[in-house]
């Protein structure tokens, strides 16, 4: 049963990572404009174009 200590630790760290990623995405302005990227992705890519990674909204 002692394995649960490790599991809890991992689960907390993982959840914390998701939270951190969400903050990072938020700071990076990924949620500022939710409309243009949807159109942008349809263009033929002759020029450089960043894809928009999806990050989970909330993490547990």
């Amino acid at each position: 049963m002692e394995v649960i200590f490790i599991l809890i630790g991992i689960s907390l760290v993982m959840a914390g990572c998701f939270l951190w990623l969400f903050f990072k995405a938020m700071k990076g302005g990924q949620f500022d404009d939710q409309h243009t990227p949807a159109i942008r992705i349809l263009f033929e890519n002759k020029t450089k174009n960043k894809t928009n990674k999806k990050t989970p909204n909330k993490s547990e």
Partner: protein
Amino acid sequence: MENTSTEKEKKQQTTCYHCGEPCDNDGLYHDGKDFCCSGCRTVYDVLSENDLCDYYNLANTPGNNQKNRATRDNRFDYLDDKEISEKLIDFRDEDQTHVTFYVPMVHCASCIWLLENLNRLDQGIISSRVDFIKKKVQVKFQQEYIGLKDIVALMAGIGYEPAINLSDLNVGKRPKMDRKLIYKLAVAGFCFGNMMFFSLPEYFSEAELLGPGFKNLFRYLNVLLSLPVFFYAATDYYQSAWLAFKNRTVNMDVPIAMGIITLFVYSLVGIFLLGQEGYLDTLGGLLFFLLLGKWYQQKTFDTLSFDRDYTAYFPIAVTRLKKDQEEVIPLTKVQVGDIIRVRNEELVPADSILLNEEASIDYSFVTGEEVPVGLKKGSLIYAGGRQKGPAINLAVQKSPSQGYLTDLWNHEAFSKREQKDSLASLANRISGKFTFTVLLIAFSTLLYWSMYDFSMGIRAFTAVLIITCPCALAMSTPFTLGNIMRIFGKSSFYLKNSQVIEKLAAVDTLVFDKTGTLTSPANAKIRYEGEKLSDETRGVLKALVSYSVHPLSNRINRYLGQVSPADLEKVEEIPGKGLTATYKSQSIALGAASLMELKPDDAVNSRGNKVYFFVEGVHLGTFFIDSGIRNGMGKMVQELKNRFDLHLLSGDLDHERQILERELGNEIHMYFQQSPADKLSHIERLQHSSKQVLMVGDGLNDAGALRVSQVGIAVTDNISHFSPASDAILDGKKLSLLPQFLDFADTGRKVIKASFVLSFAYNAVGIYYAVQGLVSPVLCAILMPASSISVVLFTTVVTNLLAFRRGMNQKATEKWK
């Protein structure tokens, strides 16, 4: 005959490859494509040279019409001014500069594509990025190779001229959207979720198998996770409660803060001193739901701006004449006595005297009336007017911020900013009584139990405080109001924030502006007097008015309906006067009386706008054009008159009083010849007799009244266009729904009250157990989310249902174009 009609059809078929407008006689054929004007062709040339013709494949005729394109080379000279360019740019280092422009023409995928490929037009541009909803373009460029001015000129050259206004200089940068709340919400959600897991062993006896070591571990983990909730996510509530405490009032956040602190302290004591379970998962859930409600309430309409003042419409630079030399200088540097030049479609930036023989000024920004006013040499032109016609020279009389109109912003109503928000909301008033009752119950419980068992007394005391934490109470308001805001938004009624709803419900006096608010250019009433119009004459007139973009021409055009236009020769528009042409060797003229030196004699009918029609110099007939009242206004007034005190304020003379009374009935008090300052003081007078005033207006001349009233609604025919600072923006077509909006705001109040009853019921159950000292963490963990969720469900379902019954909750009509 047949021949000409097929020719016409053919003519109608050719549309501009760039902008999609029909190509008239002066259409151009170039590179295998049709263009309506040289402006559109120029844009096409620029794009094809740079291999950017994909622009035309992404959407059909994506361009904007370039007919009125300004071709002056020096109009962006002001961007060379260090002071101005410093304020416009977002960021600069040794290598590159970032700048964000507002480009109102952005409307389709092609626009985005082209604007994001600016770097292919000039090597100095590193990249550009479009925000479609906000219509903003961020450009990154190397200042070594290209300057700000050249970028703006480049964008103007391809038909996307950035709108740079005076307000871009004032505030450093727009305040960024408040992300703190979302961070807090995320933290609370994260902690709440994890605490729920770690609390499970407390609730299930099977978990006993894990042994006491695990139980303690889980408790300590819960304490750890509760720290960010208590010290970070909940900080807003402590601040708000402390502020209320300092002002000796009680708001909704006082009982919440009290509950949070009790929960936290009691749980810590329980876990560390008594070795019991805590209520920390309840604490996490509480904060999560509360912040969720707060976030839901914060619905904002990004594309709309609710606090624009005159600077958002004034140009950033003007052309000054110095020793007959033109120079472009920033508006802020204009001084009284300067001679400035204002060209076609440019805004007069300061009150000034006209130096040319005549000018035709369109005051639609100011009054909502779009028919230009003809002015003679020496007359005073107010800031905010727009010149239509050839360039005029003006002598500046007042500095731009001191004008007749802009002086409004120096009024005291504008200096006390958030004065209106101090109004106690329904929830805050109730929470005062609530807090008092809860404390009373808690202390009497303590007193009762202390007679038998003191520790039991303390437990019951804290239990009351914990269980009555007004979570459901605090959530009913934001969710109801937030949902109502969304419902209103679907009917094109956009509120600045949710407090406006509570103010709307309290309104008892309505004040309307006339021009542009109750009346609309699209509903102009046209009457024709004179010789009967044959079909042929109608065709001639139709062809004539199609040549002009003057508002009166447009209205006559609409009045004539579907007639096939005749072929005219030598069509000429004389600015400020009218149109002349030749048809079958007869000279035709349409316009003001002065066009044919006709004396404006018929004084009997000298109301509103008149357009005279001449053939061979003989006056054949006259069009009388009155501003028309919007559809449904009469019905709206009938619906409103019983419940509200109605007033109408108009800047015009009272020649339309009779028409208005006939249309609207005589229950509405009418006041004419009201200056912007009169309107403001009229509202203030009403407020002094303790009325709750709602002002409905549209132009800059209503800005003062909109500002000072309890609720100011700006009516606009194009949501993304002009609107002065206000609490709400309403689509002109939906103005007739105003009674329903007011009614629904009142319903919202009732829904909040009903949900209060619901949450009181929960609290009553909770208190019943709490006073007996029977509250356990399990009960809390069940009761708390159950009450919150059921209240949220109740308010959203009820408001949606009621809105649906009123026909308001239809499919979204928002179009972001």
